[in-house]
């Protein structure tokens, strides 16, 4: 299984390096097959114009059968975007990172989804339960059982 994960990530990395990332997304580091960082910007007109965020991917040996742990990097001058589905500790509540993850999705596909999630945001605000959540949040967002009930944003 480790070999599938490494081979798959290797392939994804080769493609990213060969063809580049979609507009607004840039690879920061991918030194190993455990943690990758991307920067993400929303292009065009949006509430996040001119802002740049760092997205972190953590992979376990079961990737891509199991989903990567994805979150915004917080600290060291980096912050998480103010968005109804993004907690101030960087955790993201999105169904494709949880129960709707599919092995056919890729790192870039996740980046694009999150980019479009930001782009379609109508109002900059934190999730209503932000304070409660971040107090007890586990380090790995995959350990949180998010409840997905909002199709619209």
């Amino acid at each position, binding site marked *: 299984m480790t070999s599938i994960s490494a081979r798959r990530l290797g392939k994804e990395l080769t*493609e990213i390096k060969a063809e580049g990332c979609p507009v607004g997304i840039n690879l920061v580091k991918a030194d190993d097959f455990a943690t990758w960082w991307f920067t993400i910007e929303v292009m065009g007109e949006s509430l996040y114009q001119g802002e740049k965020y760092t997205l972190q991917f953590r992979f376990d040996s079961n990737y891509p059968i199991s989903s990567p742990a994805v979150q915004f990097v917080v600290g060291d001058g980096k912050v998480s975007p103010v968005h109804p589905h993004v907690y101030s500790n960087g955790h993201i509540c999105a*169904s*494709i990172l949880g129960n709707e993850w599919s092995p*056919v999705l*890729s790192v870039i596909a996740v980046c694009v989804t999150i980019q479009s999630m930001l782009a379609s945001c109508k109002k900059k605000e934190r999730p209503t339960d932000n304070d409660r959540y971040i107090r007890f949040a586990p380090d790995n967002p995959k350990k949180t059982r998010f409840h997905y009930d909002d199709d*619209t*944003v």
Partner: protein
Amino acid sequence: MASDYEFSDSDGDYDDDEDMIDGTQDETGESEDDMDMDAFGDDFKVVPKGKRKSFEIEYESLSQSDVEKLMKKDVEDIVGILGVDESTANLLLRHMSWNTERLIEKYMDNPTKVLVAAGVTVEEPPSSPAPIRSHSIPNSATIGTSQSGRRPTRSSSKLLGSKSPSALKSSSTVSPTSTTRLSPRATDLPTPFVCPICFDDAPTLRPLSLTCSHPFCSGCWTAYISSKITDEAEHAIRCMAEGCALVATDTFIHDLLTASDVDPEEAKVNEETWARFQELLIRHFVASNPNLKYCPYPACTNTVSCPAAASKASLTSVVPIVSCGARGIPGAAQASGSGGNLGLPGKEHKFCFGCPIESDHRPVVCAAARLWLKKCRDDSETANWIKSNTKECSMCMSTIEKNGGCNHMTCKKCKHEFCWVCMGPWSEHGTAWYSCNRYDEKAGVEARDAQSRSRASLERYLHYYNRWANHEQSAKLSLDLYAKTEKKMEDMQITSELTWIEVQFMKKAVEEVDKCRMTLKWTYAMAYYLAKGNEKDLFEDNQRDLEKAVEDLSELLESPIEAENIPMLRQKVTDKTVYVQKRNEIVLEDTAAGFLEGRWKWNVAIDGFDDPEKTEF
């Protein structure tokens, strides 16, 4: 009226189920486990087996294959009625939690809807791609569930496609979905095939897909299915494509896990995964059927069928203690097997069909037993500590701990000033500060009276708890007792003419003591909740008789063995054992009869019973 119900529709279904189970039992005859039990029981039981006693419930022990037969019968029924193939019937039944009636009803109503919901077929016109679902605004859950089925394969392949042209090409040229179900099948694909998951493009790759025609290589399928089965204990395994709701059939999974093109080590793991999958299916079936319960003992795969205790209402009149027929715990068996030629068979897998208590809690009913266990967990230690370290304020009854200082107490809550020693008001101590010599004064006596009243309920609880805990402790020590007894039995054979068979009376006695202690333990839980009155007095008389008999027998078992005494000891122990067994049956029978007659009145509200005030009709 009860008789009305027998003719209602819902009861008709219930009867069907019962027949089904009985029928299978008749075919198979007595299971091996039962026969083992009989062989064992006949040696030692004084009362011949066969007649069920009033405190015993009727039940059947089913092995894994017996349950499989039951499942198969349901599946065959559905195949016959709905005219679908076997794997479809399986998926449909699992989707409907094995509720045959509802499945048929729903299927007749709208077959496509049921087939899609169960993941048998793909939705005919694929719904428009839904955006990713996120949380926060409590939207109607129906949108989420109905659309989650067909999430945008299109968008994902587009996303992937922008980066991997090969993947795009393969997924867009896939032949359109056919309605016939061929699984697994090698999808006809333009070469070379690149697995969209591992990106492998080796020509030896075996692309497989469900009828939704999302092809992935067999390696990825196996990894995915194994992870679902072993890590997530999931039996409904959906296609790997994003948003595809198609569920893999058993044949598909079986063919993958028994594939011969893997190395022997992996094949072994796959075999285990397949066995685990079978077990998951059985567990799901058992969990869906109120007449069945899985044996809760570790590594045991037996199931018990007990239709008499399937409804919650029945639990107020019966205590459904059942046994799956197996004994001991695999792996741990070696440890207890050290009992040498005594051949300790390991503990019988006894459990309660009606509640999660994994032991025999007769004679008390499930609801009261649970209440008692909860109270003990919450209270026992705290209660002990409160009793020994605190007093109540004689004015407001707040519990106070004195952790230093003088005897002049001022209650934090009501500001009452009193003396810690005599509990009387401090004002009466006059100028005799800090030395209490007023023990007999009226006010002090009254305050102590009030205090003792409030302590009485705690004392009462501790009375029952200590006896309960004592029997529990003794039961835990029974293993030691078994070992000691074995030693004695060996000694006896050496010092007397008795044969191995003839010294079995010792073992029998130990077993009986163990069993009775269990009953005694729970009689204290029962007595704690019984309302005062003649009924309770009679109950406690029976309890006392049993307790006395058990203690006498225990003492006999501990007594030293001298050669000349052995025949007498044997006679005594045998007599006592029979007596103890009778006393135990009297307690159990009388209590069980009491439940059937509704004779027992409680002093607290207990689930399923009338409230204590309203018990008089």
